């Protein structure tokens, strides 16, 4: 085959599989060869069972041959972040706390992918328990940005983004609590979508901050991202926040050239690197030239988003991670003593520094005497931020900003300054606080490093975000881009 399979989109691979010019086995063998060649450099995967992949591929080819193909993802590999349960595969959250654990059950999204005929293709590295913006907090291995191996891929879904940019897999799943899909997508030059809160079931997603967590699709082009989103959205009573598929979210939107685009006032100013601002401004001008109405909007409480998020997220994390007590699953210390001594030793040995930092912070903001000053005020600020976003989105279809203020930084550059790292998420956090869908789409480069723009829409406006992304992507050369490795 003239073109390398690892460079093709899932949609194109699906067409070839359907036409009978490609088998899932041939595709998986090509990707496994790519894995052997570049995964050690990039470090995207923490686990890949090659025999299992080929067995799944053979089963897919047999289904197709028998006329029982299951749709556009039949035979297409999808790699999965290591906090989403797949029965029989490791479920470590890149933490020593869970490192030996093999999941005894499938998450809802894994069930959906199996039902769609996809190949559940390996485990992707992440910041421990999804806490971080660089994947440097993984206890298992380092992941590097395929565009510059001295730099971080973003996080916490850094493995999910790096695997796409390195041509290791055409589709991946991430999770997004404050930007963990969109920020690494921007840094690695791929597409990442955080759906409306409740569109995709979190059953089988290891909980970090339950009022913010969402699973979402990642791909090298917008079309593929939409394909994967369609496969994932489905009603599931096991996640009480999940309302299932929505025609409003998934039905292709009308003409993207009719979209009204809001530019939040002041967002392109402070802290945004000039090359990032230039690339995002060029995207704005593109939409204007296409006929979109572009206007400035006010989001006066935007500066409250980062402190609000880090109070709410750490409070919920300190509660959710209380389950790691060394009793039912996960690491148990060999230190003998009382149950409380065993639990304390297990947690202290199993959790890494960032997880401990966030548990301590969350414990503090919920503690007697301080909860009103921090947690309750954060909930009130969250209500204000959401109201402002919904008001802005009543007048426009999407809000456009950079995804991240600066391009990917060097490994270790911000490791000793957690607050600086938290500020990486300044543009992505509000969508989580307000439960809104958002997408990062590649829009240029800063030197050799990818830059993405960020679109936020009203609840269940995923189709609009995808349509806007496709309009931009079709006119530019950033789709399917892969780093030279």
């Amino acid at each position, binding site marked *: 085959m003239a073109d390398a399979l690892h460079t093709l989109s899932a949609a194109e691979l699906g067409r070839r599989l359907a036409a009978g010019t490609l088998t899932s086995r041939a595709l998986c063998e090509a990707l496994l060869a790519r894995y052997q060649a570049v995964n050690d450099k990039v470090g995207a995967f923490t686990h890949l069972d090659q025999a299992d992949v080929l067995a799944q591929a053979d089963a897919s080819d047999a289904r197709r041959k028998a006329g029982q193909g299951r749709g556009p993802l039949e035979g297409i590999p999808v790699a999965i972040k290591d906090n989403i349960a797949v029965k029989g595969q490791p479920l470590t959250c890149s933490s020593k706390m869970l490192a030996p654990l*093999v999941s*005894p059950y499938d998450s809802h999204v894994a069930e959906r992918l199996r039902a769609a005929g996809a190949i559940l293709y390996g485990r992707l590295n992440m910041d421990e328990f999804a806490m971080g913006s660089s994947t440097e907090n993984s206890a298992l291995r380092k992941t590097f940005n395929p565009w510059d191996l001295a730099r971080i891929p973003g996080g916490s879904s850094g493995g999910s983004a790096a695997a796409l940019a390195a041509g290791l897999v055409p589709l991946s799943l991430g999770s997004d609590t404050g930007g963990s899909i969109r920020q690494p997508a921007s840094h690695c030059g791929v597409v990442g979508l955080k759906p*409306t*809160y*409740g569109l995709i079931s979190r059953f089988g997603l290891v909980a970090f901050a339950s*009022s913010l967590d969402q699973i979402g699709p990642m791909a090298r082009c917008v079309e593929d991202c939409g394909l994967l989103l369609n496969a994932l959205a489905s009603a599931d*009573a096991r996640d*009480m*926040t*999940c*309302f*299932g598929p929505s025609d409003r979210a998934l039905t292709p939107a009308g003409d993207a050239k009719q979209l009204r685009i809001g530019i939040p006032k002041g967002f392109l100013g402070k802290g945004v690197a000039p090359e990032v601002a230039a690339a995002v401004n060029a995207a704005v001008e593109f939409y204007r030239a296409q006929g979109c109405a572009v206007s400035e909007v006010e989001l006066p*409480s935007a*500066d*409250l988003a980062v*402190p609000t998020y*880090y109070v709410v997220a750490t409070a919920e994390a300190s509660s959710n991670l*209380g389950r790691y*007590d*060394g*009793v*039912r*699953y996960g690491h*148990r210390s060999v230190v*003998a003593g009382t*149950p409380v*001594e*065993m*639990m*304390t*030793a297990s*947690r202290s040995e199993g*959790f890494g520094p960032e997880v*401990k*930092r966030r548990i*301590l*912070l969350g*414990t*503090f903001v919920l*503690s007697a005497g*301080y909860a009103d*000053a*921090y947690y*309750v*005020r*954060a*909930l*009130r*600020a969250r*209500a204000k931020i*959401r*109201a402002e976003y919904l008001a802005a989105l009543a007048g426009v279809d999407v809000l456009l900003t950079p995804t991240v203020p600066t391009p990917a930084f060097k490994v270790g550059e911000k490791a000793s300054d*957690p607050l600086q790292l*938290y500020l990486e998420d300044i543009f992505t956090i509000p969508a989580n*606080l*307000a*439960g*809104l869908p958002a997408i990062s789409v590649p829009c240029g480069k800063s030197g050799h490093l990818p830059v993405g723009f960020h679109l936020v829409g009203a*609840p*269940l406006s995923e189709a609009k975000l995808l349509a806007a992304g496709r309009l931009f992507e079709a006119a530019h050369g950033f789709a399917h881009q892969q780093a030279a490795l």
Partner: protein
Amino acid sequence: MAEGFDIDHLAKLARLSLTAEEKALYSAQLNQILGHFQALADADLPATIDDARVVDEAALRSDEPGPVLGAEAVTRIAPASHDGQISVPRVVDDES
């Protein structure tokens, strides 16, 4: 907002055992982060509290028994088990 915090008390609440170095590091970092949270104290905020609901389509499920993993699958992933039950350190001392 907070004048400070007792790192030993916090660690005890969080069931974490910290070294002296960790206590010093986390104390400094948490103070820096809490300083950034001052914006919340200064803000003019509504009385309403966000309830995290986005779309009113979400609903409570009925309270009925459903499929469960089963003892074999649960004890297989437990750190220690015996006769189909999870083992833990002794909780109640023998009377003597």
